[in-house]
C-alpha cells in the first residue's frame, strides 16, 4: 500500500513535468499547425535561466587569502559575492539561496522574448511549408540553441539547488496513519507539482475566460474564417507562441533543482513530450495534460520491483507500449480531433 502511494506521488510529479512540456507543444500544434522540434530546447533554456540568474546573483570579486593555498601552491583565491558585500552576508546569502524562485520572474520576459523572436523571425515563414520542412528547421534550431548553451556553460551538469527551506522531505505517511519514514516526499517536488497545477490552470482559464483566448480557440478550429472576420489572428498567434515558450521555460526553471541542468536535457524530453502530445491527441490541451499524468504514473509503477520481477525491463519500454496500445485502440489519441495532423 505504502509503495503504491509513493509511486502515485512519483507519477504525479513526473506527470506534471511531462504535462507542462506537452501543454506548450500541443498549443503550438493546435494554434499554428507547426511541429516544433525546438520545444525541448526551450525547456532547457528555461532551466538555464535559473542557472544564469544564480550566476548573476552570485557574481563575485576575488580576494587572495594568504593563509591558504590553491593546488599550485599560490595564495587561495576566495570569491566573495557582490550581493553579500552590498546587502550584508545574511541578506546576500538569502538572495543567492532564493535564486531559483527569483528566476521565475526573470525567465518569463526572457522566454516570451525568445518565443516572439522565434515566431516572427523563423516559424512564421514555415506555416505554409510541409511538416517535414518544419521538422528540419526546428531541429536545426534546437541544435543551435543547445550548442550555444554548451559554449557558455560547458557540457557538465550545473548544480542549481532549491532554497534551503525546501531541502529534505515531508513525511506524508504520518498524516495517513503510517509509521514515520514510510512515505516521505521531497518538499521541492511537492512545490513543483503545485506550481505546474497553477500554470496549467492559468493557461486553461486564459483560453477559456478571456476574449483573447476565445479568438485563439476559434483560430484553432478554423483559422481562415477567423481571418475573414477581420480579426488579426497573426498577432495573437505570435503571442500564443510566446506563451507556449514561457510555459516550457517555467517548467525548466522549476526543474533545475530536481536534476542539475545540462545542455542536452531538452533532447531527453523531446521524444517523450511528442509521445505525450500524440497519446493525448494532437492539438488537444486537456488530452496533453491527461496523457502527461497518465504516462508519468504508469512509468512510476513500471519501475516498482514487484512489476519488474514479472516483466524484466518493463520500465524501459512502458511509455512506448502504452503509446502503441492507446493509438491502436483510439485512433486519434485520448482526446484528439478528427483531421488534425493526419495527412
Amino acid at each position, binding site marked *: 500500500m505504502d509503495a503504491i502511494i509513493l509511486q502515485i506521488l512519483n507519477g504525479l510529479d513526473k506527470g506534471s513535468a511531462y504535462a507542462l512540456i506537452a501543454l506548450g507543444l500541443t498549443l503550438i500544434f493546435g494554434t499554428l499547425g507547426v*511541429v516544433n522540434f525546438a520545444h525541448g530546447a526551450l525547456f532547457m533554456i528555461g532551466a538555464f535561466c535559473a542557472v544564469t540568474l544564480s550566476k548573476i546573483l552570485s557574481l563575485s570579486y576575488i580576494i587572495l587569502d594568504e593563509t591558504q593555498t590553491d593546488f599550485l601552491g599560490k595564495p587561495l583565491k576566495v570569491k566573495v559575492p557582490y550581493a553579500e558585500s552590498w546587502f550584508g552576508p545574511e541578506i546576500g546569502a538569502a538572495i543567492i539561496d532564493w535564486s531559483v524562485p527569483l528566476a521565475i520572474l526573470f525567465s518569463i520576459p526572457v522566454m516570451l522574448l525568445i518565443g516572439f523572436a522565434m515566431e516572427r523571425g*523563423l516559424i512564421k*515563414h514555415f506555416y505554409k*511549408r510541409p*511538416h*517535414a*520542412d518544419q*521538422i*528540419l*528547421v526546428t*531541429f*536545426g*534550431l*534546437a*541544435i*543551435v540553441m*543547445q*550548442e*550555444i548553451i554548451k*559554449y557558455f556553460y560547458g557540457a557538465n551538469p550545473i548544480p542549481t539547488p532549491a532554497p534551503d527551506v525546501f531541502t529534505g522531505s515531508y513525511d506524508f505517511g504520518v498524516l495517513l496513519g503510517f509509521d514515520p519514514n514510510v512515505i516521505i516526499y521531497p518538499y521541492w517536488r511537492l512545490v513543483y507539482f503545485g506550481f505546474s497545477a497553477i500554470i496549467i490552470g492559468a493557461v486553461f482559464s486564459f483560453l477559456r475566460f478571456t476574449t483573447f483566448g476565445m479568438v485563439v480557440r476559434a483560430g484553432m478550429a478554423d483559422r481562415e474564417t477567423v481571418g475573414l472576420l477581420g480579426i488579426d489572428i497573426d498577432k495573437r498567434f505570435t503571442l500564443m507562441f510566446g506563451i507556449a515558450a514561457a510555459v516550457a521555460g517555467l517548467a525548466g526553471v522549476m526543474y533545475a533543482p530536481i536534476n542539475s541542468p545540462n545542455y542536452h536535457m531538452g*533532447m531527453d524530453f523531446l*521524444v517523450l513530450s*511528442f*509521445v505525450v502530445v*500524440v*497519446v493525448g491527441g*494532437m492539438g488537444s490541451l486537456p488530452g496533453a495534460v491527461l496523457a502527461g499524468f497518465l504516462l508519468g504514473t504508469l512509468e512510476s509503477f513500471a519501475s516498482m520491483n514487484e512489476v519488474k520481477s514479472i516483466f*524484466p*525491463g518493463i520500465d*524501459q*519500454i512502458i*511509455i*512506448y*507500449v502504452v*503509446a*502503441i496500445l492507446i*493509438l*491502436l485502440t483510439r*485512433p*486519434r*489519441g485520448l482526446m484528439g480531433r478528427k483531421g488534425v*495532423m*493526419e*495527412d
Partner: protein
Amino acid sequence: MFGLDKKDATLLVIVAILTLCAPFLLNPFPSESALAQFNAGYPDLMQRFVIFGIFAIGFNILFGLTGYLSFGHAAFLGVGSYSAVWMFKLLSMNVIPAIILSVVVAGLFSLLIGFISLRRSGIYFSILTLAFAQMSFNLAYSVLTPITNGETGLQLTLNDPRILGQSATADGSIPVTSLFGLEMRSTYELVMGPWAFQFNAGYYLCAVIMVLAFYMSIRIFRSPFGLMLRAIKSNQTRMSYTGLNPKPYTLAAFVISGMYAGLAGGLMASMDPLAGAERMQWTASGEVVLMTILGGAGTLIGPVLGAGFIKYFENIFSKINDTVLHSWFSFMPDGLENLVVMLVYPFIGKGWHLTLGLMFMMVVIFLPGGLVEGGQRIRRLFRRKDDTPAAKTEPAE
C-alpha cells in the same frame, strides 16, 4: 537503356561514374597540404557515404512517394546489422549470406511493424514507428544483451563457432570479412605525385550495391506501383473511392524501404563487424529523416546527397582541432591569428554540431527543395548565362 528513359539513364550513369571515381573525387587535395583535412577519400568514410546513401534511398521510397514519415527506420538498420554479425559468428565470414539474412530479417521485422503502424496515418503513424524503434533500442541495450551484447555492441570473438569458416586464423586472430576470399578491408593505394588515392574492396562492393539499389529505386519511382504510391500521398481518400485499397501498397513500400535499411545495416556490419544498439536509437532514425529532407524528399538523387552531406560533417569537421586551425592561420600576425582561431573554433571540432544545425536551417530556409533544388538553381544560373556546365574540381594528374 535498362528500361529507363533517357533522362533517368543519364542520371544512373552519372551516379555510377561518380561512385566509381569517388576515391579520386573525394581526395582533391594533396595529402601533405593543409587542406588535406578536407579530404574524404578514405575507405571508412566512403563506405559510410554509400551505405547511408542506400539507407536514405530506401527511406525515400516510403517517405518521398507515400508521404508516410517513419521515425523508426533505424530499427531495421540495427536488426540488419545484428543478423549480419550473427551470421559472421555462426556461419562464415563471407558477406553474401550475412547480407541476405539481414535483408530478410529486416524485411520480416518491417512487415510486422508496418502492418501495425500503418493502421494509422500522419503523425500518429510517425509516433507508432518511433515507439517500436525506441522499444527495440532500449531492449537491445539492456534486457536483450545475450543477443545484442548491449552497450558494447555485438562483436566477433575467437570462440565463435563459424561452422563454414574458421574460429581463428592460423596466427591467432579473428578472421576478417570477405567476399569469397576477397577481404573487405583490402585496399589498393595509388600514389600520384603528392596525391594518394585509396581503392578499397569493401567500398566497391558497397558502391556496386548502391548503384543497383539506386537503379531499383528509379524503376520503382517510374513504375505503376510508384504512381500508386504517389496517389496515396496526394489523396488517399480519393484513391479508396476509386475502389483501390491503399493499404497493401503502403505496406509494400514500407517493407521495401525496411529491406533497404536492412541491406544498409548488413553492409555496415560487413565492412566493420560490430553492431551497436545506438544504431537503433531515435537519433539514428531522425538522422535518415534529416538526410532525406536535406537532400530533397521525393527526388531520386536527393537522399544520397543528404546522406553524404551529414556524414561529411560528422567525420571531417569533428576532427579539426585548434592545433590544426593554428597551423592554417599561422601566416597571420600572432594577435590576428588568435582572433581568427577564436572566431572559427566554436564551429569546428567539438562544435561541429553547431555548424550542422546552422546548415540545416540555411538549407531549409533558402532551398525549400533541399540540396537538389540548390543544384537545379546553379544549373539554371549557368544555363541563363549560356556558360559551360559547372566544372567539377578534378585533381590535376
